[in-house]
């Protein structure tokens, strides 16, 4: 690995200022994604060779979580996933979130990998991850997935670039309507997570709204509500240590056996976490049974535009949507 400079940030303001000053500086959390990226020397016309790592773990108070019945859950972006998957308040009040925090990779990666890092990790498209492929996302002029093997690529919303969103935690947090706190040179702001991710249409070289010198500081999850049923499923090729072929997180508010409100998100299928709005509309006000679950999943996937090798993902997505609806029932 080539050498890079290391800077231990002392505060969020310090980190932001350092990033603002150095265009080749990059925030570092657990490093489980970023260090591999640098080691494999993934660079391109719009993907610079990072020279300075700004460590966020050294910022006081950046890690840890708080829970209260009124306010819900607040999680520092630098909190390791392994802390969250076993946290008593999370397991008891948001069991589906605890499942999602335990879903990525392997225990050792979750020990170092942080929630902020998981949400902000770069996609896993194997061309993107191969040093020789200069594709759109690195600023090149080609998408290798279109003509090459694409069994793990997007079936929905792909355009120019067909990555799938890699994060297991994002769809679960989105299903809970979480918010992200962001700090930048102009101060702090809070945005719904549903406005946080951007697709290739907006900017093919980025996956979030964050500017170079902006950072995610905290995730806020609303307090749990009565009558809510949740479910989380992840389909992989390998039992552990594997990215999702498809995953589904569902949040259903049920009243008198009828669906009053719902949020259903998928990852592994589109460049951003994908909201299954057609499913939500189809089940609204209805009682979920096998037939409705099937109808909702099928209607959602009419939207799918699979590539040459990944049509199977459409059916896997349907199967997982059905399972999520029926389990939450």
């Amino acid at each position: 690995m080539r050498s890079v400079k290391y800077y231990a940030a002392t505060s969020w303001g310090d980190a932001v200022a350092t990033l603002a000053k150095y265009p080749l500086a990059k925030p570092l959390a657990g490093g489980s994604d970023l260090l591999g990226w640098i080691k494999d020397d993934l660079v391109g016309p719009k993907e610079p060779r990072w020279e300075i790592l700004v460590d966020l773990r050294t910022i006081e108070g950046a890690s840890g979580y708080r829970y209260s019945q009124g306010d819900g859950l607040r999680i520092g972006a630098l909190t390791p996933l392994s802390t969250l998957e076993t946290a008593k308040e999370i397991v008891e009040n948001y069991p589906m979130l605890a499942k999602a925090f335990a879903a990525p990779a392997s225990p050792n990666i979750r020990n170092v990998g942080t929630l902020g890092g998981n949400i902000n990790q770069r996609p896993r498209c194997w061309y993107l991850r191969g040093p020789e492929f200069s594709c759109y996302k690195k600023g090149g002029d080609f998408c290798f997935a279109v003509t090459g093997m694409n069994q793990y690529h997007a079936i929905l919303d792909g355009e120019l670039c067909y990555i799938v969103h890699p994060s297991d935690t994002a769809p679960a947090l989105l299903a809970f309507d979480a918010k992200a706190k962001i700090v930048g040179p102009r101060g702090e702001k809070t945005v719904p997570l549903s406005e946080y991710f951007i697709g290739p249409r907006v900017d093919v070289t980025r996956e979030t709204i964050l500017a170079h010198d902006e950072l995610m500081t905290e995730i806020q999850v609303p307090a749990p509500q009565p009558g809510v049923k949740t479910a989380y499923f992840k389909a992989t090729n390998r039992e552990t240590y594997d990215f999702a072929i498809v995953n589904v997180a569902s949040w259903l508010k049920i009243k008198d056996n009828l669906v009053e409100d719902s949020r259903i998100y998928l990852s592994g299928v589109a460049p951003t976490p994908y909201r299954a709005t057609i499913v939500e509309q189809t089940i609204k006000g209805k009682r979920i049974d096998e037939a409705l679950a099937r109808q909702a999943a099928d209607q959602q996937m009419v939207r799918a535009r699979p590539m040459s090798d990944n049509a199977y993902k459409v059916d896997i997505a349907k199967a997982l949507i059905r399972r999520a609806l029926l389990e939450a029932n």
Partner: protein
Amino acid sequence: MVHTTVGQPVGQVAGPLKVTGRATYTADIRLPNMAYGAVVRSTLPHARIVSIDTSRALAMPGVLAVITGKDIPPGRVGRRIRDLPILAVDVVRFVGERVAAVVAEDQATAEAAALAVEVEYEELPAALTMRDALAPGAPILHPDLASYDGLPGAPPQQSNVLSRRTYGYGDVDEGFRQADVIIQRRYTVPRQHQGYLEPHACLVSTAPDGTAEVWLTNKTPFQAQEQAAKALGIPKEWLKVHVTPIGGDFGGKGSVMDVPVAYHLSKACGRPVRMVMSYVEEFTAAASRHAAQITMKTGVKRDGTIVAHQVRALFDSGAYGAFKPSPTLELMGNTRLGGAYRMENVAVESLIVYTNTFPAGHMRAPGLPQAIFALESQLDALARTIEMDPVEFRRRNLIREGEATPAGEQWVQVRAIETLEAAARAAGWGTPLPENVGRGVAVSEHGAGAGASTVQAGLDERGFYLRTGAPDTGTGSHTIMQQVAAETLGVPHHAIRIETSHTLAFPFDFGVGGSRVTHVYGRAALAAAASLRDTILQRAAAAFDLPTDQLGWEGGQLRRPDGRLVDPFTVIGPVEVEETYDSAGAPNVTGFCAQVAEVRVDPETGKVEVLRIVSAHDTGQVINPIGHEGQIAGGVIQGLGYALMEELPVVDGYVATQSFAEYKIPAMGDIPELEIVLLPEPTGPGPFAAKSIGETPNVPTAAAIANAVEDAVGVRIVDLPITAEKVFRALQRKHEHGHHHH
């Protein structure tokens, strides 16, 4: 026979050193004034090199030298055929080929400088697949093939075929006419990486006179010495190659990799040069298992008789044949394309084909997992088609003592059917299973290894020792030698020290490979230990002035006629003997392995979960149960990875899986329950009737799993790996066909 040390579960000689991080692997060695090398690699699959500009790299602070193919004497590397240039000259033939090299004060600078070397290419048409390479008018990768050193047989005509072999007997067309059922299928298997923990590394320290000291990760240091010397055009005595501990080999560590480059870099800067391959380099430019396409057409009668078997197998060599050691450049799996089955008419053709992709090499049982996946899938499909139980079908057709295999091999002590039955029994073959759960069986075998090796045994002031020229690749081979010698000398295994020797101080040693270690080194260690004991007894008898038969040997000590035990060293001082064992006269045996896999398939996602694997073996005497079980468990896991997830796909000439996140090997959660069954009454040519185990357990697993998937949900996957999406698609097609019938 009752043994005291042989058959005991003893820990590995170097185990404590390895688990505490104190073992000195090649990459751990630091020499004073050492410099660091890095390689500039081709970014195109086939191209003419127009120019190489090294000026920016040379100008970087800390850079000591930059070399290209034009700066060094021309030289090609290879284990048999020498077709791989040390550094490309004029032409590159795969993405990842070495084009230039840099040496610098530290690793980071070397890597940064390698990036600063600018190469201008003129792209040439490439043959990226075997189909492209064999098509009429295909670009010829090696127009000068006939002039290469090490090419066996007559020079081939201008084509991309590196080697071709045919065998068979009878008349397959006549056989197919007699068949009740004929199945023809094409099986494809991907490249597989060995996945060892330790990447290839080397350290080369040249002297002004051109001699050099070499450390490298290589299981055959004496052959590496010859390979490197030939490539460099120097006498092999100029290279002192050390035997180093190997952090996993699985067949992949038989080539010299960066050694010739490091030699030239060391000469260029006058300092020792260390080079360690990154795992990206491992996945894109090391010596992975050959991808293959195997077409089989097989005819059977309703009673299960195999009347005709026709095979065309294509193995993808990549751009070079340099990593294949066999004198014929074949893979040994070629000879198993009909397995160990009785077949009335056979016609096999197999080709090794050059393509513009990274060169393939040897991996654990070269060619066998490919051949056996195809064969055992094919036989299973036939059995199901004639509605015969797959175990019964195999029982009827496996060869018995006195019969030869389709490739003409004949063994003694053939225990194929006993091994199959042992596996079926342990697996509860025939008992009912829940829905979507299935069982599959597959059979393979591997010989007990062959060749000659020398081992020295001695006694000095520190005690007994053995000296070998072979490294322990992590399999526990040194422990086996220790145990065998300990048994012979009547001492505990830890009372014997293991020493290794470098290439200038020890007779030529063939090294590790072909499952020969337990047999050949074991027998050599046994002979050396026996000779040491006899020599000590003779010399001690002379010293005591006693007839030899008046002296006893007990627990490594001398027993005098008065009953007193005496330490032999105090009587005769240091002593050393040397023995060579040659397997030439040994009986020709093989060791069978039958596996039964039990899988559950999720019909909604296609995901295959392996629930249980039974692996039955006729290994002969187990010398070390820990090592033996480790070989089986590890082999089954490697076979499971091959079956379900491992592949190095090449897209437009580029490898798509360049890290362990993309290249998936089984993780803990994927590993099923394993039950090992060993046949009683050991027979074998090795020490204490041992056979081999290393290259057997990884071979039948993929076919057993594929067969179990068909048993579970009725779909047959003929392309490895059997991923969820392939099973899912096959299930979909099956349902669509079902609808059409209505």
